[in-house]
């Protein structure tokens, strides 16, 4: 049985595990012993991996070769930007952009910890510089700029850096007339940036409207999870809105809705398939077919 995940905890910069896992019998004292490279972050750790959906056990190498999709039940494991770039771009070749734009604690926001400290801690445990990374490359010889979120970085939260990096990506697409894709994977807004984080919705939407005027395609790929400000802005504004199978996508999180309506949520609620049925997705694409489908779509737009 899949554990219900609390991705709001990730927004607080905490690991989104249930109490049960937190108080397990064995503790990993040293993190990432077998996953020292940047590519392996946000992927199942250790030699063996157990599918959270069906319990199938396979080696991480096998899982990696299968694009982190369970060989038995096709459950899509959560992966990071590096994995997506490797999957999508030709020959693993791409240029990472705007890495020099970094978050700062402008508001001196302190909850249980200061935002400054949270940032320092996050930077210390990952090679990722913020919750979105931008890369430029080709997909079967079609140019594409991708902004891909990393859930590992404070729950993929939407802050000023995400807004600025995506805005610059869009500007680049305007100048070079290259299509833009955003791969969404985020619990929502970065509350430690308060209203600044909210205004990023407007900021990115403004840039997208310029892409519209210039006739440049914009594709939004929604992956698990895509919530809050993401779905209330660029996540839902694609010329194509597409999603990976089984991804949780919505405006309000399941916990909040449950508390509001005081009822259990129906099976499959807010999953990709649910959104497709309700008319909010153009199609669902399994990870293994992603590159092929993207290339087809991009060349259809072009020719």
């Amino acid at each position, binding site marked *: 049985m899949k554990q219900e995940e609390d991705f709001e905890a990730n927004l607080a910069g905490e690991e989104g595990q249930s109490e049960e896992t937190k108080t397990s019998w064995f503790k990993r004292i040293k993190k990432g012993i077998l996953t020292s490279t940047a590519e392996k972050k946000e992927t199942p750790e250790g030699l063996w991996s157990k599918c959270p959906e069906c319990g199938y056990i396979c080696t991480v190498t096998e899982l990696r070769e299968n694009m982190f999709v369970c060989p038995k039940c096709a459950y899509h494991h959560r992966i990071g930007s590096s994995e997506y770039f490797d999957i999508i771009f030709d020959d693993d070749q791409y240029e990472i952009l705007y890495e020099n734009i970094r978050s700062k604690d402008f508001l001196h926001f302190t909850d*249980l910890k200061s935002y400054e400290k949270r940032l320092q801690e996050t930077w210390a445990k990952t090679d990722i510089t913020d919750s979105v990374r931008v890369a430029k490359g080709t997909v079967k010889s079609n140019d594409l700029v991708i902004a891909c979120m990393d859930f590992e970085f404070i729950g993929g939260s939407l802050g000023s850096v995400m807004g*600025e990096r995506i805005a610059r990506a869009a500007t680049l697409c305007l100048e070079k007339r290259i299509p833009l894709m955003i791969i969404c994977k985020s619990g929502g807004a970065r*509350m430690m940036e*308060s209203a600044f984080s909210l205004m990023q919705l407007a900021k990115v939407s403004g840039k997208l409207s310029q892409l519209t005027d210039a006739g440049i395609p914009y594709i939004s790929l929604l992956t698990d999870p895509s919530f809050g400000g993401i779905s209330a802005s660029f996540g839902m504004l694609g010329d194509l809105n597409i999603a990976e199978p089984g991804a949780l996508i919505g405006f*309000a999180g399941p916990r909040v809705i449950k508390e509001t309506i005081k009822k259990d949520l129906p099976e499959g*609620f807010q999953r990709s398939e649910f959104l497709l049925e309700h008319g909010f997705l153009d199609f669902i694409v399994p990870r293994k077919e992603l590159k092929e489908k993207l290339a087809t779509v991009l060349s259809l737009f072009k020719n």
Partner: protein
Amino acid sequence: MPQDKNRQFLEFEKPIKELFDDIEGLKQKAEKSKIDLSDPIRKLEERVIETRKAITQNLTPWQKVQLSRHPDRPYTLKYIDKLTTDFVELFGDRNVRDDKAMVGGFASLDGRTVMIIGQQKGINTKARQLRNFGMANPEGYRKALRLMKLAEKFNKPVITLIDTPGAYPGLEAEERGQGEAIARNIYEMMRLKVPVICVVIGEGASGGALGIGVGDRVFMLENTWYTVISPESCSSILWRSWDQKEKAAEQLKLTPDYMHQFGLIDEIIPEPVGGAHWDYQEAANLLKPYLLNTLNELGQLTPEQRIEKRIEKFNKMGFYDEVAQ
């Protein structure tokens, strides 16, 4: 506006209530004994004004939040009534239904036609339920967009009045695409050819507020707040408890002063002494010149210039470091 004896008081407004009680006592005494007590009554009334002023001078962020939710506070339809004439309310999103939490229509503001739209809260328990506490569903946002497009067709400026604790987090709201509805509004408001002025008149919570909050100018009334999440929800997520709302309100820096200082809003609009709930007409009168002046200003620009400036205005928002690599 409620009569003085029907007024409701927040905890920090209690000193005013005591004065009101004293005045009432004196009035009854004067009535009974036929003694002229108008002098002491007038003095007490002056003290009411002084106390209103004193109380709102040093409000904590949380008290501002409370004031923005004052049960006697004027809501969108009240402002429309006090600001404009010939208001014709228009209903429905032409798709699902009419959302009572979002109202709007054409009206005349000092002789010029405007489209005025806003979230609407209820003034009593029954009305609050009808208005869904000012929390719109997707059809509310789509109704707002329909009205904005109508305004664009007839080249009339759009004024939005923001007052919401958030977009409704319901099951059907998700089925009908709450996220998409808000996203579409943000995107389309960015491209509207007519002038757009947005005013936070009460609560400005998150995407629910921004869904009618993208404009050439964004104002906040003095006793309002605007940020990415309500202090209560922020407390529950970041502090893992519902009890830190005061702290969350402080940390979020959600008051008009901060928002103005950060360059996220353009002007702070003064309210009547002690808050808009003391005098609805005065509250509207204080807002009106800002609207008229801004409409004149924006009218000087071409649609293309306005859209370009609007995109640029929001594009500048954000804080980050650019480190050397």
